[in-house]
């Protein structure tokens, strides 16, 4: 029994490792830059300690608003700047690679932004399948993997599994002309199979509501014959299905936060019962980045709702748009004795808040500004 388990474990880890992405070319130079910047930053932090204790009083929005309600006020604030333009993400992904056919742009339903799928060839002559996606907050993700033709059609990946809709995508050989998602209850949701000019294989996509349970993806040829059914094994991370520990915290605008401890202490945010966000709250990691630097606030959003955690001195958080319009959220303690306060608010912006940029400002009980965090307007990551 033990031998069988150990053999199975060895095989599983070996096969799973093949699913890891490949490091992009040119990463070393970026890591060296990051390493040097961090060293410089460490020196700057030491030099800035005396200044950090000085808070600047600003009478932006007077008084507390316990309901975390929406307010408008004209603020004498510095409008968020446009983020410095970064290197085109597609160009970054294609460093040392040669394109193979046309790119396919599809909608990432979780972000409401385009995602790119394409083929490329590396210096060794291997054919790679590449994807690039962008988040509303300006982060980019890209990577290439060598497809396994033998196992096609393949399910290569999906977009964010906790968004309202999820895009699944993969590769098929050219005889496949249609893909259908078979869902629990017997319903079928049609997807798309596209074969961009000059590409070696076809790309299939299927956009499925998150709450729909997928049984399999079914592939058919031009005669309507089913050529393959691929079972779907995607699962939500442990924290989204773990039992909450302690009471739930109910916040303004129908948000509910619960604490789970599997696999780490994580706050799970829900709206109408659906997971819309999470924050890691283990004491060691609380409001701390990988370099060990502390930050005062972590905010996420879904639709008009914005919510998050902030350092425990903060009594109120304002989200200020470039035109000075402010949305306010009063913070409240959490029921789990974690050293943060929770907040939730709604804004009335008609444009995407990340596309136009905003500033978060934290105040103490006396209305003194404790911190400011600017989110510059986000620009597309590729042409």
């Amino acid at each position, binding site marked *: 029994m033990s031998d069988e388990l150990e053999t199975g474990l060895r095989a599983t880890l070996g096969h799973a490792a*093949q699913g*890891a*992405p490949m*490091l992009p070319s040119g990463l*070393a130079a970026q*890591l060296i830059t990051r390493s040097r910047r961090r060293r410089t930053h460490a020196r700057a932090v030491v030099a800035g300690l005396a200044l950090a204790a000085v808070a600047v009083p600003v009478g932006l929005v007077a008084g507390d608003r316990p309901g975390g309600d929406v307010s408008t006020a004209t603020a004498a604030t510095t409008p968020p700047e446009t983020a410095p333009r970064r290197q085109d993400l597609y160009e970054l992904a294609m460093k040392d690679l040669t394109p193979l056919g046309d790119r396919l742009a599809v909608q990432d339903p979780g972000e409401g932004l385009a995602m790119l799928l394409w083929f490329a060839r590396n210096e060794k002559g291997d054919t790679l399948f590449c994807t690039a996606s962008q988040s509303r907050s300006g982060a980019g993700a890209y990577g290439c993997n060598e497809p396994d033709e033998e196992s096609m059609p393949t399910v290569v990946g999906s977009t964010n599994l906790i968004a309202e809709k999820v895009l699944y995508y993969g590769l098929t050989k050219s005889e496949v002309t249609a893909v259908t998602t078979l869902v629990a209850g017997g319903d079928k949701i049609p997807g798309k199979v596209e074969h961009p000019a000059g590409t070696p294989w076809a790309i299939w996509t299927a956009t499925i509501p998150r709450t729909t349970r997928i049984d399999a993806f079914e592939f058919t040829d031009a005669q309507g014959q089913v050529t393959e059914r691929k079972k779907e*094994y995607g*699962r939500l991370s442990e924290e989204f299905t773990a039992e909450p520990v302690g009471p739930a915290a109910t916040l303004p605008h129908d948000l509910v936060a619960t604490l789970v401890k599997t696999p*780490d202490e994580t706050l799970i945010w829900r709206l109408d019962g659906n997971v819309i966000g999470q924050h890691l709250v283990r004491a060691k990691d609380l409001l701390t*980045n990988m370099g060990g630097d502390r930050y005062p606030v972590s905010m996420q959003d879904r639709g008009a709702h914005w919510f998050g955690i902030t350092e425990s001195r903060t009594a109120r958080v304002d989200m200020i748009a470039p035109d000075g319009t402010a949305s306010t959220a009063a913070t409240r303690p959490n029921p789990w004795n974690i050293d943060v306060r929770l907040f939730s608010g709604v804004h009335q912006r008609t444009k995407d808040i990340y596309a136009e940029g905003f500033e978060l400002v934290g105040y103490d009980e006396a209305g003194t500004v404790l911190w400011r965090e600017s989110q510059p307007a986000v620009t597309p990551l590729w042409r």
Partner: protein
Amino acid sequence: MNDDHLFAKFVAESGDALLRYGFVLSGNPHDAADLTQEALIRLHRVWPRVQRTRDPVSYSRMIMTRLHISAWRRRRREHLAWDPPERGVLDTLPSDSERELWHALAGLPRKQRAVLVLRFYEDLTDPEIAQLLGISRGTVRSHASLGLSRLRSAVDLRPATNGDRS
């Protein structure tokens, strides 16, 4: 060749292997990418010393493992140089039993998972694992035993039919 050139050469030669290790250690591409990049950044900062006195792969693996065990979960606050695409599914596992085993691994405490990954993926000996994790050999054996026991109770390892269970 100066230090940065040697470091870049090391990343080009060993980066993917470290990323694969990070992937089986953490179970997802984002944590794997973050762990790998963070370990490489830390390696760069001590590169002149490590390349002279130690095996950089072993050093990087030690940083990644200790980071993962001690203080890790994807921290969306800091985006490093590169973030891989979302992978909601894993299509490289050829059988249901391997998929079950992969998901069962996700339920193990980190140290147990790390010991099993080091033993069965990296093929390290118990003394090597003990040194890497900074724990005793007895503790390594204990973590391995507990981890295997939990996996055994979580997955069904009946004999396969046609290479897979029905």
